[in-house]
Each structure stands twice: as C-alpha cells, then as structure tokens.
C-alpha cells in the first residue's frame, strides 16, 4: 500500500479508506510494517485451524516471534458477543457489527502493534469470514466491506477449499450438534439444525468462491493429505519471510 495516500485512522496507518475497498485490500502484503501477517480462511471442517497450528509450530521452531490471534477473542468485546448469542439477540446487522468491534479491538490492541514490532502474526479467520457470513445473512456486500476498511491487508490469505459434503462429514464425526448461529438458525432456513447448517454453509462457500478472485486469496486444496497441504503453506510463507525483519526469539 502506498502509505502517503492513506488516511490515518487512529495512531497507525491503514490502507486508504477513501479508495474503493476492493482495490485497496487487493494489494496483499504491501502494508509496510516490518512484521508479517498470515491468515487462514475456509468453512468449518476445512481443516484450516490444523494447518495454522502446524505453521505456528514450524515458525516457532525456526526462531520467529509468532503471535496467534483468533476470531472473536477480544477481551473487551467477547462477553457482549457471548450474551447476544446465548440470548439469541443478534440480528444479521448486530451480528456483523459486534464481530467487527471484536476485530477492531484485536487490530488496534494487538495486530498493528505486533506487526510494527516485527512479529509474525497468524490469524485464524479474518475479514473474509465476516464478508462471507454477513453476506450469507443478507447484509449488503459493499457495506460490510466498508466496515472493515481499517483492517491490515495480510501478506497471504490462505483459503482452504473443501466440498461442503466433505466438511460436513468431518464435522458430524467430531462433535454433537451445531450451535444456533453457526448453523444459521437465525435465518429460519430449516427447523433441522443439520439441514440449516448445510444450506447456510453452502451460501458461505459460494461467497468464499467469489472472493478468491476479488481479493486474490491463495487457494489450498483441503482434500489433500494434511502433510501435502502444510508443505504448500510453508513453501508460500517462506517466500514472504525472505525480506521480513527477523524478530527471532532466543533459542
């Protein structure tokens, strides 16, 4: 990103919010911070968290200062999200806004300062999760992209592509039942939570596919063996670390 054209939001530079959101987010990895930001995306059951945790261990073993940030984990905001979900108070709009608030807190409090300090920051889910879910809930596509204009563009956004049936088969073996919002039960797509989950995740999958060209997501075939996927991920990450400031931990 060309910082000189950026508008300052708060104490740090972000990409220019006066530009069209798409064009600015597309400039992946050009954010001029000494650290590096890598993020993973994909529907539930795509195996993205497994891949991120393997990447995390590898980077740590190589001596990088690595920090992990999870979707929906801000200490200031998560109680409100929890309350809204528990009491089923969230509409598509407030669902969208409270998640952006959580993301804003993590951006201001941790992601930006860490990238400035030269850390490698790993995020399990990023703005693309919000775009996919919120649009699947009927939120205006342009509006939600605008909401997240303060986000730092990642160096690489990995998208773990998996067919819906494969993801569902992985999930149904692993746990019992789906949560209300996770299955999109607020949209009254079906009274059956598994059926609702299937329809809702299908919509999310469609949105992810549209975002691959829109944001230049790096697609990983998530039906491949875990090791093969991880080899690809590490290969790509290695290329982006070449000129990174190396904030190495002492062994």
């Amino acid at each position, binding site marked *: 990103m060309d910082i000189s054209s950026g*508008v*300052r*939001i*708060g*104490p740090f530079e972000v990409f220019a*919010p*006066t530009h069209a959101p798409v064009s600015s987010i597309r400039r992946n990895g050009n954010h001029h911070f000494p650290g590096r930001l890598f993020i993973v995306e994909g529907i539930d059951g795509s195996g993205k968290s497994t891949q991120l945790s393997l990447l995390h261990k590898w980077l740590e073993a190589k001596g990088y200062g690595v920090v992990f940030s999870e979707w929906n984990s*801000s200490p*200031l*905001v998560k*109680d*409100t999200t929890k*309350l*809204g979900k528990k009491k089923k*108070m*969230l*509409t*598509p*709009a*407030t669902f969208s*806004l*409270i998640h*952006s*608030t959580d993301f*804003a*807190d993590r*951006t*201001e*409090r941790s992601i930006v300062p860490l990238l400035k300090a030269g850390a490698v920051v790993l995020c399990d889910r990023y703005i693309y999760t919000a775009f996919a879910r919120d649009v699947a*809930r*009927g*939120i*205006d596509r*342009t*509006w939600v992209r*605008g*909401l997240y*204009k*303060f986000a730092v563009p990642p160096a690489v956004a990995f998208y773990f592509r998996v067919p819906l049936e494969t993801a569902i088969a992985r999930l149904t073996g692993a746990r019992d039942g789906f949560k209300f919002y996770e299955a999109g039960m607020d949209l009254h797509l079906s009274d059956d939570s598994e059926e609702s989950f299937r329809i809702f995740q299908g919509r999310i999958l469609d949105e992810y596919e549209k975002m691959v060209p829109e944001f230049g997501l790096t697609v990983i075939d998530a039906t491949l063996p875990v090791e093969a996927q991880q080899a690809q991920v590490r290969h790509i990450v290695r290329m982006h670390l070449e000129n990174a400031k190396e904030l190495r931990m002492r062994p």
Partner: protein
Amino acid sequence: MRSTYGKSLPDMNLSDLSGKLIVIEGTDGAGRTTQIDLLKPWLEELGHAVLDTGMARSSLAGDGIRRAKEGNNLGPVTQSLFYATDFVDRLENEIAPALRAGFIVLTDRYIYSLMARAIVRGMDPVWIRSIFAIALKPDAVFYLRVGIDQLVPRVIFSRGFDYWESGMDLYPGRDMYDSFCNYQHALLTEFDHFSQEFSFETIDASAQPKVVFAQLKASILQLLDSDSRETYLSKLRADSSEVSVHGIAGNSAPALREATRAELNLVLHPVAVHSPNGNGHGVPPRE
C-alpha cells in the same frame, strides 16, 4: 415513506414506520436530557405514545460499552464500532418497532454525535458516514447549541469533568480542563458542519431551559397532527387570557400569562425559530 441515509438493513420494512422520529442533539452539557424529560410528559399529555432512547442503552451492548469505558484501553476504531452496534440494536429492536406502532420516538443523540466523536478521534469521515448509512432519516433534528464558554461552568458545577467527555483518550497528559476545551471545541466544529449537511434546526441552548422548551414545543407541534396542534393552541389561548391561570393568583399570574403569550406567539409563528441555513436564530458566533 421513510428513508435511510443510503443503505438498508435486512428485514427493515421502511413503508410502515409511521411514527415520528425526533432527535435531540448537542454536545455534553447542552441540556438534552433536561429537555427530553420535559418533552416526554408534554407529548403524552397531548395523547401521544412516546419512546425515549439514547446512547449505550441497548440491552445487547450497553453493559459491554460501560465495562469497556471503565478501562483505559478502548481504541478509537473499537469505540466507534461498539457504539454502532449499540445504535443498531436499538434501531432494530426499539426505534423501528415504536415507529411502526405510531409512537413518537425521542432520541437523546443519534448518529451525528457518534460520527462527530469518531471524526475527532481521527476516523475517516467517509468511512464513518458509510457505516451509518443504514440509519433512518429522522423527522427533525434539534441541535441544542452552547458555546464552550457556557459549557464549562455547566459541567464544573454539575458533575465535574469526566474522562471521556474531556477526550482524555485523545489528549493524555494534559489536564482535564485543557483537554475538555480542546475536545468539546473539536466536537462543536463537527456539529456545526453537520447542521448544514443534515438540516439541523439549531436552538440556542444557552437560554433558560423553559425558553428552549418553548421553542422545541413550537417546532414539534408542526410535525404533529392538526388535532394535537389545536388542543395545545386552545390550552395556550385559555392560559394567556385575562382569566386566572389555573387558579394561580397573586403576582406570579401576570408573568406566567406573559410567558404563555410568548409561547403562543412562537407556536403561531414558528418561522421565527427556524434556521433554514443551519445557523440558528440567536446562536452565538463560533469560537
């Protein structure tokens, strides 16, 4: 039909929001709450159902915002979006349903305060406007304007300086007084811009509360049905006539009659208080 500032929320039917949405805006200490406390019973007496609402009162985010503000690590982007969450929760669950039921909604602040606070904290004005494009356009925005010179004594002698009202998150290390003046001045500048952009009716809030109240009543009557107007007009006419005023005898009766006549005049000639150019009648010049 009611409209928004450009974007619609899912499931928000704009065609049946028949009530009136009345916004009372102004900086901290401008007397908004006092006026709403006066307006609500007055409107109810005229037979209108009234909902009053205000910032950080949502059941979803109100407590979360209060908790977040107890600490000193609420960033400007997070703060802006947290308040947007609170606003939309009230918009969808209080304001819109009340308008649908034909209520008069009196709101203590609206998106304008939220945008002004965000902008003075360095948020991009285009960005914050795009977020609040989902807000319903109100029927009227009354901007209670007070200059900083009048604001300072009001704040000092009522509740004292507050960390957030003084913008201490913006100017750390300064004393509360300097910070308060800087911050409130920046907010006033934004409000003055907004008053034209969003057609505020500016009211000089340095006047006595009862004078401000009379102006608000006169303007609000124009938004209401003719029955409400007639009911209130006949009450004013009766009160201002030579007959005794509600049994009040003695020296206070002539003064009261005079005040009532002044109000009657305002109601009959409301143009006098209007501010088509947003630079209201009797408003002190900008600092």
